[in-house]
């Protein structure tokens, strides 16, 4: 959520308790700032006195945004559920392990007790830790305005830079995380803060493996908190392949993958690209050869 800087010393704060109220307020106050946990918003303001320059609409008390529900094939979180609550809820044992691992890596316990899953997705200046994980899980969101509701897989709502795009009067309301789809996963992140480090890197993958065959695979990278890299064609090429791959197959997949990331993202130092390629190779040669995990 972008913070507007201006001369208003004392920001007006709305604290609606129902979603309809929140949507109505947002529609009537164009330019208002949605405030969930506020961690990303306040981390940009190092001074004592936060300046917003626009009214705040706090979503913390909106009943519909604080729910956690488990359905047969997915778990649904209200957008204002904190990351700490996600880890502590009863439903967490059904969550994909790659997602729980990623949540544990976000910040510190204090940050997780304040940051919300919806807020995490909606940060536009950086691509935070959970976004690629939710992408590869084919997680879905529900987005609502006063007049309309949209829902679908997260990737539908990302722009070409993989930033979340919301219409001016829209709020993310639900995030749905599929369960039971994948039986192999991997997650790795360099130590350091995605917001503060100048060299941040994260990779994740999920796969469905049936004996030796890959039935489905998704993988993504987060580079410097600025780029989410996902090569769909590489994913598609691996479907139906039998693991372990032969040396020739590995070389072929590496060649294809490397050609696809050449020049993208633009301006990336060579060693960071090498890192991406190294991880892809590791996934091919080691991670995907493992036996299926029982989720």
């Amino acid at each position, binding site marked *: 959520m972008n913070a507007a800087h201006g001369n208003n010393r004392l*920001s007006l704060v709305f604290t609606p308790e129902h979603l309809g109220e929140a949507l109505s307020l947002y529609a009537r106050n164009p330019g208002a700032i949605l405030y969930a946990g*506020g961690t990303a918003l306040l981390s940009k303001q190092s001074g004592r006195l936060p300046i917003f320059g626009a009214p705040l609409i706090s979503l913390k008390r909106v009943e519909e945004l604080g729910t956690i529900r488990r359905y047969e094939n997915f778990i649904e979180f209200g957008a204002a559920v904190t990351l700490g609550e996600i880890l*502590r809820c009863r439903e967490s044992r059904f969550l994909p392990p790659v997602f729980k691992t990623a949540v544990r890596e976000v910040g*510190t316990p*204090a940050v997780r*007790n304040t940051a919300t899953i919806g807020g995490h997705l909606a940060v536009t200046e950086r691509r935070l830790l959970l976004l690629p994980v939710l992408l590869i899980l084919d997680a879905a969101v529900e987005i609502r305005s006063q007049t309309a509701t949209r829902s679908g897989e997260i990737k539908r709502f990302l722009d070409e830079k993989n930033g979340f795009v919301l219409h001016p009067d829209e709020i993310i309301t639900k995030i749905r995380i599929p369960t039971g789809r994948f039986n192999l996963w991997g997650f790795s992140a360099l130590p350091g803060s995605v917001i503060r480090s100048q060299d941040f890197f994260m990779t994740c993958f999920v796969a469905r493996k049936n004996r030796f065959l890959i039935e489905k695979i998704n993988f993504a990278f987060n580079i410097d908190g600025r780029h989410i890299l996902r090569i769909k064609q590489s994913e598609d090429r691996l479907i139906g392949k039998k693991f372990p791959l032969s040396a020739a197959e590995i070389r072929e997949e590496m060649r294809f993958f490397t050609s696809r990331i050449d020049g993208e993202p633009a301006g990336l130092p060579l060693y960071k690209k090498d890192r991406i390629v190294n991880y892809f190779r590791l996934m091919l040669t080691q991670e995907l050869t493992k036996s299926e995990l029982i989720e």
Partner: protein
Amino acid sequence: MIIRFKLNGEEKIIDIPATKRAIDLLRENFGLLKNKASCYQGACGNCSVLIDDRIVSSCSVLAFDLRGRSVVTAEGFMKTEEYQRINHLFQKNQYDPCDFCRWGKIFAIHEFLHSEERVDGSALTHALKGNQCNCTSPTLLLSVAEQIVEAERKMNAGRQHERSARK
């Protein structure tokens, strides 16, 4: 804005700007100075307090967000038995963190004690990583934290045993 909340067990009502940071509210309006304001970015842990019994960086919480919630600062936590047990092990190990980072560490340990994390070195290290201060040895912190966790585990096991025996 009128903010009504519980502070160290007592109901409080105060009229203040809604967007004042909680750490400044606690220090300036209530004179609770043991929690310190340092980075104002939620990075250092010095301003850690418990809100609804969970550790948060109070510099990253605005006043309006305290409504209806229960806040425990250092001054309030000092009155608890859990604090006495933690402090006892601090002293026993000659572990004496400075006033800035002390409460961030204590609250981080408290959070860990009440979490579902499995008790091993890596989880504890992870739980303590949000505290920045170089006044003490990090290895000593970890060692003391492990002792605290172990002591709490034994105490809880003992209480569980007593309860079962009574039944």
